[in-house]
Structure formats: C-alpha cells, structure tokens
C-alpha cells in the first residue's frame, strides 16, 4: 500500500514539476526575446542575420536618452536620501510610540506604495497645480519620495522590531544617553536594513513610469523617455536600452540579496544557545 502511495506522489510530483517549468519559461521567455532583439540587425527574429552592437551605439549618440538616464539616477539618489530620513524617522516613531489607531496610521503611510500609481499620480498632479507649481524635476522627485518612503519605513521598522528593546536597555543601563545609544548601538544594528532598503528604493524609483508620467514636464526620467520612444513603434534602440536596464536590475538585486541575506544571519544569533 505504501509503495502505491509513493508512486502516485511521485507521479503528481513530476506533473507539478512540468507545470512549474512551463511557468518559468513563460516568465523568462519575454526577457530573452528582448535580449535577442537588442543584438539583431533586423526587426524580426526569424533569420537571425548575425549580431550587431549598432543599436547600443545609437543609444550613446542620443543626447535625450543620456540626459534622461542621468535624470533618473539623480532623482533616484535624491529620493532615496529623503525617503531614508523620513522613513527611518517614521520607523522609530511607529516602533517606539504607542497610540490608538496606530494600525490606521501605518496603513496610511503605506498607501502610496500599495495603491495603483494612477491614484497617487493624479492626486499629486492636482496638488501641485493647485499650488501653481510647475511640472519639473521637483514634482517628479516628490512623486518618487511618496512611494519610496513607505518602503524604507517598512524595512527599517521590521528590523527595529526584530532587534527588540533589550539592546537599548543594555546601552542605557551601561551609561549611554539616548543620543549615544542611537549612535553607537541602534544605528550600527540597523545599518544593513538601511542599505538594503535604500537599494530597493533606488531600484523601484529607477523603473517608475506610472506616477512619473503624470508629473513630468519637459524634464524626463528614463522610463518616461523610453515610453515616448514606444509611441512611435518599437525601434531596436528600445531593445538595447531595455537590455541595459535588465542587466542593471540584475546587478542591483544581487547586491540587495547579499545585504538582506547577510543581515538575517547576523541577527539570527540573538538567542543564547546551550
């Protein structure tokens, strides 16, 4: 009886593995397409007539694109900086202070990250127009700050909760005032969370199109610029820049994985063993 059970389990196992593999192929096939097209001199993949770097060269000769790239980097760095300050302050507030309705407060802060970008885009657009603020880098930056701050706050508050209050108590007990406690004990212990959150926020900001498209004037970020390129059909340059973004994202994720992985190890060793 048990061998029959094992056989049927194995059978279902392989069926599942096939299905899983199909889903995997479905997930990665489109990206491979983009990659291939970026090196193909013609529009179609049929008849792969050799590889070319022509499209990549054209990228570097497009001043609008290069400018958009640097704009995106700038917005990313500024947004991450601002989000880190506000998000970390928010994380400390939410983990250290108790008040009724705290759950609602946290939910409100998470809204820009959870809601569809169109809602955040239009609310901010109306907001800026009402204050007569022109659409520019500033408005795009504010848009990016709106969805990166909750990210930072979530990551940092998770780490603070995992850390627990004991280290702070120990520091104060041993003579450190609140400022010294923050600087010598708390901050080093959340450092990896900050870096991880920063990388994550930068990645999200780099790719952001939905809100940015609402808040853009003539000053464009890369996704907005690419989107503009797409409206006139898909020139192969689009594939080239897409591949570059693909590779950049992969690099950023590997960095992030290293940071979140390592930090998990370090602070898992909180429980004293026998």
């Amino acid at each position: 009886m048990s061998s029959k059970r094992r056989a049927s389990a194995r059978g279902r196992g392989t069926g599942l593995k096939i299905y899983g593999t199909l889903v995997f192929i479905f997930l990665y096939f489109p990206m491979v397409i983009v990659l291939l097209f970026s090196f193909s001199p013609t529009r179609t993949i049929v008849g792969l007539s050799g590889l070319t770097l022509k499209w990549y060269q054209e990228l570097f000769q497009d001043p609008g694109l290069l400018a958009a790239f640097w704009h995106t980097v700038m917005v990313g760095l500024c947004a991450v900086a601002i989000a880190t300050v506000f998000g970390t302050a928010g994380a400390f507030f939410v983990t250290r202070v108790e008040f009724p309705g705290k759950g609602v407060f946290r939910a409100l802060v998470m809204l820009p990250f959870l809601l569809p970008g169109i809602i955040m885009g239009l609310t901010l657009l109306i907001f800026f127009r009402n204050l007569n603020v022109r659409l520019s880098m500033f408005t795009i930056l504010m848009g990016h700050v709106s969805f990166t701050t909750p990210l930072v706050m979530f990551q940092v508050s998770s780490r603070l909760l995992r850390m627990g209050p004991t280290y702070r108590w120990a520091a104060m007990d041993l003579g450190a005032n609140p400022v010294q406690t923050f600087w010598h004990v708390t901050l080093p212990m959340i450092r990896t969370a900050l870096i991880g959150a920063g990388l994550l926020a930068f990645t999200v900001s780099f790719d952001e199109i939905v809100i940015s498209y609402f808040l853009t004037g003539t000053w464009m970020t890369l996704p907005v610029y690419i989107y503009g390129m797409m409206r006139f059909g898909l020139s192969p340059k689009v594939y080239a820049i897409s591949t570059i973004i693909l590779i950049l994202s992969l690099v950023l994720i590997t960095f992030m994985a290293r940071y979140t992985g390592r930090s998990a190890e370090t602070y898992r060793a909180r429980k004293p063993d026998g």
Partner: protein
Amino acid sequence: MKADNAIDLVNVTKKFDEVTAVSEFTVAIKKGEFFSLLGPSGCGKTTTLRMIAGLEVPTEGQILLEGGDVSSTPAYRRNVNTVFQDYALFPHMTVRKNIYFPLKMKKISLSAAQPRVKRVLRLVNMEGFGNRLPQQLSGGQRQRIALARSLVAEPAALLLDEPLGALDFKLRVAMQKVLKDIQRNIGITFIYVTHDQSEAMTMSDRIAVMKDGLAHQIATPDEIYNNPSTAFVASFIGDMNFVHGTVLDNDGKTCVLDVEGKKVTAKRAVDLNNGAAALVCIRTERVQVNSPRSVENRISAELSRIVYRGTDYEATCRIGRAELRAVVQAVAWDAALRVGDTVELAWNAEDVIVFPREEEKDVIKYSVEAV
C-alpha cells in the same frame, strides 16, 4: 543609617494603567549583600529590578542608592548595572568592545581602560576571547561576558534578571557557584531575580518572596524555609503538605488542632481563635514513616501510593479525606511496605505551621486542573 545601605526601596509602587505590578515594596538592601527577588511569573520581581536600574519610573515611593534619591534619575546616570536575561551583548562589537562600552560612555580612553577590561575578563575566566564576536560564543560564555561588561564600571550594585534561565541544568549549577564566588570576592551588592526557588535558596543572603506585586516575606533562606509568613511562601519553597484542620485549643505558645478527627500539636505562636478553620502544613521530609523515635505527633494512615525517586521514596498516605505525603531517604525506607498497608506517620510539633484557611487560595498547586 540609610547611607550604609546599598539600595533602599521606600513604599515603591508601580502601576501600568489599572494594573498594579508592584505594591508598596519597602526593603533596605545592605552593602555586599546577595539579595534575591523570588516569585512566579508576573509577581513584579522584574519590574522592581527595572525600577532599581532606572528603566522604569516608580508611580509612587522612592528609590535610594547609597542614601541618595535616584527615583527620577535616568538609567544612564545611575551607578547600577544590569545583566539581562538574554545577555544583550552588542552583536556588532567584539567582546573587548562590548566590555569597554560602559567605560567609553564614561569618557575613559581605550588605553586607560585596557587594564580594567583585562582584569574583568580574567575574573570571569574568559581571557583570550577579546577579539571574538558574541555570535561565536556559547550560551555560558556569553553569560560570563555579559557579567564582565556589567562589572567593569564598578557599579554600586549589580542587578541580574534571571541570568541563568537559558542554560541547561548542569551548566546552571556550575554558574551559580561562579556567580556566588565572584560576588563574595569582589564584595559587590547583588540583586538577583529568579523564579527558581532552589537557586534563590542556595545563593542568597536574603530573599524577598513576591506574589502579585506584594512581598510576602523578606528574610534569610533559613527563616523562609522554617518560618514562612504566609501559605503562599510555604507552598512556593520546598515541598509542603497542606491539610484542613480546626483550632481546638490555642494558648499562645502551643496550638492543638483537629485534623480528620485526630489531634495535631503545633509548637508555635498561632494567631487564630478556638474553632477557627485552619490550614495545617508540614514539610514532606519532616514526616517520618513507622519511626521508632519519640515525637509529639503520631497518626496512623493508609499508604495509597509509593513513588521511588532514586535518592528517596515519596509515600502518599490517606487519613480520612486528607492526604499527607512523606519523603523518606531511600536508605531508611522499609522495602516491605506495600500500597494498602497501614503505617504510622510521625512528626515534631515544631515542624507544624498553621495558617488561616483563607490563605489556601494563594497556595501554589501542582495538579492537572491547575494547569
């Protein structure tokens, strides 16, 4: 003189909204004393310790440190240090940096601090571990580093919050000796929180036994064991029999009670009137079985259960509706005894402790229903 005492608690009360965690706790802890706070979880012992450390502020009352009022002084300005239950060693610092931390907060340079750090490492037998990280240490090692870190600044008192709780049995017993030796060698005041009564009894000069925020008794281990002031203390320490009795004749020095129709004599001052309902208590190891020695109280009973425990036997006996347990050393046990036999139980009159029947609800019970 208050200044001779290491710590004074004067009517200290701590309320969290409507919950009273500690109620009017008053005690004078002497310099160099090993003082324990003992009780079940939720009794307020840790809250009391945190108030002494400065991590909680008392709702009412005062806390004096070497005569000076520190009730509102924050923790980082009080000259007491704490060893926490999970040690709280800073994971991003080496052992040496951890120990140096309190001296660094006192603005002492690393070079000036080195000899003190070395000395305290030697004290806990952890020399050579200076460059390790806490994650690389075992539980017992972390515990010793936590101890070293709290001692290096030479505080007026050391507070320990169940420091041995996470260690397994043999290690715990070994560490108890280490802690006691260190305390005696340095002569520093220890305030020790635990729920383990044998731990408190072995190590302490005095113990405060607490329940629900109240200190039931503050006395030496000997006093607490032989003259518990409440039924709770009697039940929390050691192994105690509790049976119902009625006061027959109380002349202030001796008290005769009726237990299931038999007479029991207690040779101590009992504050109950004739006819009052009482709780009669005898330590299980003081109950002798079929002993030839002449002793004031002798009652026959029926053996209902025999449990062999290695070093001793626990014999449960019935007298009417009451149950008495006797613990007899294995070497003195009569191997011929069987369940159902009638035996004669005997004990001294000094060993009988009497409480009012109302205190029965405070008694710690070990039964399936209690769980």
